[in-house]
């Protein structure tokens, strides 16, 4: 469903050109759970941003569900993000002045669902992450793990086919991280394609496929991880 060919991304400032991605090629099939690891600054977030249509690519081609993304205008890109993609961020990114219910509601309003439909989806997804009793709470009144669960509920309420997570457990302790991972595994089992960027090899290992990024390219050279998972499988 995701197909990147020779994608490059160059950040230009007055003095420097940063090649965040170079000739980056990757195919992800429907239903996969892919983890992305790599050193800091290797381009993981850049890849995710491009995959999630948050940023433009400088060169190469990117097809999502067979559509050439570079041909879409801003409105169409917004719509793809809204309907097909769910985002989970390291720092949760809940909107601080909205309560849990309203936070989950945000993408559903942009989707144009009617009030009854939104309410049903919001309640269902908040129940699913186990926070049914907290709907009127503000984000600041929840723990980090709970906030990340709300973020997952928000990402899932629109039933996206594609979930992108950038260090979803980076701000959580290992127990919380595990439970978030359990949730993601459950979601993947239900058919949602997941791409998750992480630093922690232990977590990466729970994905069904691992890719290693170095210097803005997919590297074949991630021996420990691949060997570990191959040995396990």
């Amino acid at each position, binding site marked *: 469903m995701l197909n990147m060919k020779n994608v490059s991304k160059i950040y230009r400032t007055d003095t420097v050109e940063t090649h965040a991605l170079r000739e980056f090629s990757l195919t992800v099939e429907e239903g996969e759970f892919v983890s992305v690891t790599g050193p800091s600054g290797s381009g993981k977030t850049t890849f995710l*941003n491009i995959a999630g249509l948050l*940023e433009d690519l400088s060169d190469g081609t990117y097809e999502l569900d067979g559509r050439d993304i570079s041909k879409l205008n801003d409105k169409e890109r*917004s*719509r793809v*993000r809204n309907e097909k993609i769910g*985002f989970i961020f390291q720092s949760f*990114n809940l909107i601080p*002045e909205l309560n849990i219910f*309203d936070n989950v509601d945000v993408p559903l309003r942009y989707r144009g669902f009617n009030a009854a439909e939104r309410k049903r989806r919001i309640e269902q997804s908040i129940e699913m992450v186990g926070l049914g009793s907290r709907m009127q709470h503000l984000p600041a009144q929840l723990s980090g793990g709970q906030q990340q669960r709300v973020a997952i509920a928000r990402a899932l309420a629109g039933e996206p086919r594609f979930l992108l997570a950038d260090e979803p457990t980076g701000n959580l302790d290992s127990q919380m991280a595990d439970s978030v991972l359990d949730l993601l595994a459950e979601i993947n089992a239900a058919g949602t394609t997941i791409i998750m960027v992480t630093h922690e090899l232990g977590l990466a290992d729970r994905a069904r496929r691992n890719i290693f990024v170095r210097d803005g390219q997919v590297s074949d050279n991630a021996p420990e991880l691949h060997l570990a998972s191959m040995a396990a499988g």
Partner: protein
Amino acid sequence: MEFGPIWRAMMRNKGGYLLIALQIAVTMAVMVNAFAIMQERSKKMSRPSGIDDANTFSLVSVSFNPELDAKTLVQEDLDLLRGLPGVANAVETNSFPLRQGGWSEGLHREPGVGKSVSSSAIYFVDEHGLDTFALNLVDGQNFAPDQVSWDSDSPDFWPATVIVTQALAEDLFPEHEGSYVGKTFWFNDENPANIVGVVERMQAPWPTWTGIERSMLVPLRRESEFARYVIRTEPGYRDELMVQAEELLSGSNKDRIIRGLGSAEEARKLSYLGDAAMIKILSFIILLLTAITGLGIVGLASFSVARRTRQIGIRRALGATKPAIVRYFMLENFLVSSVGVIAGGVLAVGLNIVMVQAFALTPLAWYVIPVAMIVLWVVGQVAVAGPARRASGISPAIATRSI
């Protein structure tokens, strides 16, 4: 629409919004009442004087000849003036509407010493007065030439016939119904005057006098070294005839000076100078307040956009289009403005009630409040448009790039 969450989000961060709403409310209250004052002044300024302002001018002849034969000179002058091509008519008189100087007299309904029941501006004229001032005679008739007398020939000074304005007649005889022609009142508690004609309107010389609509034509000519001439021209000839008339009179008799040349229009402008200035000042205040409020809204919105940079990026990442981001800030501003204009409406009416009582202002016209509301709503939306557009330019990548 998304009013619900926008409102709830605002309620968690009230301070700035309340201040702006308050500013809008105060602006509206001042705006509405300033406008009411402006409206009243401009209504006052547009009252018709009753004469043909546009085509009327006046000048004064001051003779310094000790052997002056005033009767002859005035008659010669009038003949000369009336003979000028383009002059419709001319009269010798003491003043004209809105000149800010003139003669007034207390009037009695019965002879004998007592309180006067009314008062009136007095214009001394001959039988050309009615036509020179272009008054609209609604009842009775003009003076016959033999009803006009010189004060030197008139032992009691006050002549026995007058032409009054409708307003004066009504004030003198409030109970009376039907024609006022033939009714009698008394000057100075002893000289009877019989109404021979009623004109629709002729204002007094004093713009601020409450009795400005009460005046009368008195068929008396006064022998004096001063003679004020009022001249009405055919439309369009006024300016050239002002020059010609001055030259003509200066040339016809060397023993005098001509001064006080001026049009009725100028006199009118002068007499409403204060009102015109007030209107200018109040418009300026309204503009200034509106601009300050607009800038306040720009400031609040810019601050709000800056504070929410990350949230805007998140919204974009979650699928908000650029127009959706613009709409968010427009709606937010609409809510703040609505609170402001509703509070402002209440405040405006309250202030108006106070002003009506304190300064006898006429109460607000019903449409002023809704119009002010719409104006401030529009100002708000225009003011917020810039910051909102900037907000829509925030990249969705903010969501992953900021900590």
